[in-house]
């Protein structure tokens, strides 16, 4: 049915590789992520006919609500957050197989009920159905959920077959190296690595995947992708929003934990890794790991590789905004950074001597995620002097918003004399392919159903990243507010982050 309903031109082009019968169980079913991302993702996969005919959705949470009440919540979430309008045809198909199981995360009896519920689904379908558990909960309940999945036998359900139980885990994967090792230890007690899908939604974004395509499917870039031609790389993950009502959470997190250690490091790995031998998940993850291992320990001293700051009062969208310390739920003497700037050195044949500058912050000038690769200037003085306005060639991947890429070249200004000027070539996803592209969670949930772990983080990747940043976190914790910079809300960051670039006469971009 699903195959025949697709346009024939799409056959063979889509990712419709036939997800097996699947029962998705969402832990934290009444949570914000479930409403904003997960339910709409399931809905849009259904609208695209990418869900298997025997697809079941079960919410699991502490709240005692009925199946109908959960369906109503899901329908409301689709109306509010889905990229498509709610269509009764599509929703009715999902709703008929949507259920809710109430129970605590540390309640073995509740997990036994969940196991019985999934067994009943197997029975109704008349064949084995793949269980896919989505842990959309605070990290504090990861461990009890995992233990109960193990104790109830759900973790081993259909193990040894392609329909084995799979678990998607949301970040954070620990808050330092020690806790990451502990979490991975708990995971490995009940699950094998191939059952685990650590999700970083950035990897599901089209432009991030396009980064691999651009690098490895175009012959013109890869020969230049090294220290001989690239001057520096800047990765910016900036947010316009402040901490909002999440002050309590953010106080325990900060920019380094919230953004740099996970999202940004994945972007570094994909930008800088060697070509994998294949598109196989393990081949790509192995190359990412090699790259992460080649990153040198950070210099934490004065004039070192790191900068941190908090936003002060400023102005965004023409209106005054308070500083971080004036936000609700923030301690007056808080030492949590809302901005982190990092200079990475990668000690391998390809990248030695090329600085990778990373920055992430809240209440910055605009929301943007960008990877900018700046090439070296051409040798010689053929076009030198005042008449020749030359810019460094820069290839920038805009991950969000306005997904696309641009390349800055130098061109001749039309006229009778030879004058030059930087010009931009732009590729916009929405212009070329339309604006209704899948959300990251759609791609990732489908991948997990299919068993493709390429766009998920392996346990050793998370550990290696924490190994790099844990000494920094400890140093900052020890220093308290000493060395904390400040930047106006709505600006591009603090002056102390500019210092990271001064030695090489680089400047932060204003994307």
């Amino acid at each position, binding site marked *: 049915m699903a195959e025949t309903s697709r346009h024939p031109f799409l056959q063979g082009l889509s990712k419709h590789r036939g997800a097996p019968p699947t029962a998705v169980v969402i832990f934290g079913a009444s949570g914000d992520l479930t409403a904003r991302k997960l339910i709409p993702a399931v809905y849009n996969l259904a609208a695209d006919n990418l869900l298997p005919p025997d697809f079941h959705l079960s919410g699991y949470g502490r709240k005692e609500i009925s199946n109908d009440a959960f369906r109503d919540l899901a329908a409301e979430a689709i109306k509010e957050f889905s990229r498509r309008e709610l269509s009764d045809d599509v929703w009715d198909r999902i709703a008929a197989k949507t259920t809710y199981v109430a129970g605590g995360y540390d309640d073995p009896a509740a997990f036994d009920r969940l196991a019985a519920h999934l067994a009943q689904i197997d029975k109704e379908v008349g064949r084995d159905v793949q269980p896919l558990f989505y842990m959309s909960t605070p990290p504090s309940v990861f461990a009890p959920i995992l233990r109960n999945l193990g104790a109830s036998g759900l973790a081993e359900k259909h193990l040894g077959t392609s329909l084995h139980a799979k678990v998607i885990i949301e970040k954070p994967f620990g808050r330092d190296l020690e806790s990451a090792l502990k979490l991975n230890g708990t995971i490995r007690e009940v699950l094998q690595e191939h059952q685990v899908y650590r999700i970083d939604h950035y990897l599901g974004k089209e432009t991030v995947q396009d980064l691999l395509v651009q690098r490895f499917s175009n012959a013109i870039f890869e020969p230049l992708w090294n220290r001989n031609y690239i001057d520096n790389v800047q990765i910016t993950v900036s947010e316009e929003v402040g901490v909002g009502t999440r002050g309590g959470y953010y106080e325990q997190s900060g920019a380094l934990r919230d953004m740099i250690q996970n999202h940004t490091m994945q972007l570094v790995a994909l930008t800088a890794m060697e070509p994998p031998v294949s598109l196989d998940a393990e081949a790509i993850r192995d190359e990412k790991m090699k790259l992460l291992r080649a990153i040198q320990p950070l210099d934490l001293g004065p004039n070192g590789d790191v900068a941190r700051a908090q936003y002060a009062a*400023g102005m965004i969208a*023409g209106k005054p905004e308070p500083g971080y310390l004036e936000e609700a739920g923030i301690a007056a003497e808080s030492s949590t950074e809302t901005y982190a700037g990092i200079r990475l050195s990668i000690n391998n044949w390809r990248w030695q001597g090329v600085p990778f500058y990373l920055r992430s912050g809240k209440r910055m000038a605009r929301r943007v995620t960008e990877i900018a690769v700046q090439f070296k200037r051409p040798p010689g003085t053929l076009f030198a002097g005042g008449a020749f306005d030359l810019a460094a060639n820069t290839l*920038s991947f805009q991950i969000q918003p306005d997904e696309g890429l*641009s390349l800055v070249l130098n061109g001749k200004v039309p006229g009778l004399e030879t004058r030059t000027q930087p010009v931009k070539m732009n590729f916009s996803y*929405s212009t070329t392919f339309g604006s209704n592209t899948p959300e990251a969670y759609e791609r990732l949930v489908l991948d997990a159903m299919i068993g493709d772990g390429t766009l998920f983080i392996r346990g050793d990747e998370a550990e290696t990243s924490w190994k790099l940043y844990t000494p920094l976190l400890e140093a900052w914790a020890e220093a308290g507010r000493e060395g904390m910079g400040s930047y106006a809300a709505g600006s591009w960051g603090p002056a102390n982050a500019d210092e990271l670039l001064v030695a090489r006469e680089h400047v932060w971009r204003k994307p």
Partner: protein
Amino acid sequence: MPGIEVPVGEIKHQLARMWENTAKSGGAAPAANSVRATQMNFVLHFGFATACQDAVTQFETVKEFAHRYPCRVVVLCPLKDDGGADEIRATVYRECFLGKSKSDTRCVECVMLSYSMKSRLFLENQVSICLSTDLPLYYWAHLFSDSSRLADYQFMLKHAKRVMFDPGLVPEGGDVVSVAATGSDPRFGERTFTAGAAVSGPVSVGISAESTGERMAGDSYVSSCSLRSGGAGTVGLVEITVGRLWGSERFGGSRATVRSGGK
């Protein structure tokens, strides 16, 4: 000034909506979501001395310029009687210039930001997100008679490929500009400043220029320039006329002389 007032956070969406509406009504408009052809960023910054009619005249000048050289235009207007407000307001305007062929159509978007005295320290942040990244910035400061106010705009002064101070109506003997605390930035010499005669000398802290009221025929400009402080990083100021800067064509309205920094 033409255009419609919008919330500052809605500039981008409102411009897109305006193009959509223009296209729906059969007018010339670029394709939805497409990037407008731009060669550069152009910031026209009015000083307090700018009268309303003069502002309109200068804006027409910028439009004429954008017609020839498609650019992202940002116009900055200080609010004279802001009542102590702490805000920035935006007005957006768009227009397509039709040429002889379809390929000769130039579409330009203008963002006008009106700012109170209190909010001027945050103005450059807002400007930065209105500009097209990676393209050269041209900064035209019109009728700034108080140098301390211009010193608040270090980003535009430091990052502009060309800076033009238009002293056409500066009071006789008035201080045209002083750019304080610019440091010995090696890129300093690539930028352009007004002055009436070639001046060479060391610059490390800043530049000031004074009007003596003398003007050459054709172009109006400050006839002397003094360097406020000596030190490392010698910068010689070399005169570039408007004609040289924009391809031997004067664009009307403004009488300005531009000088280029160069080592």
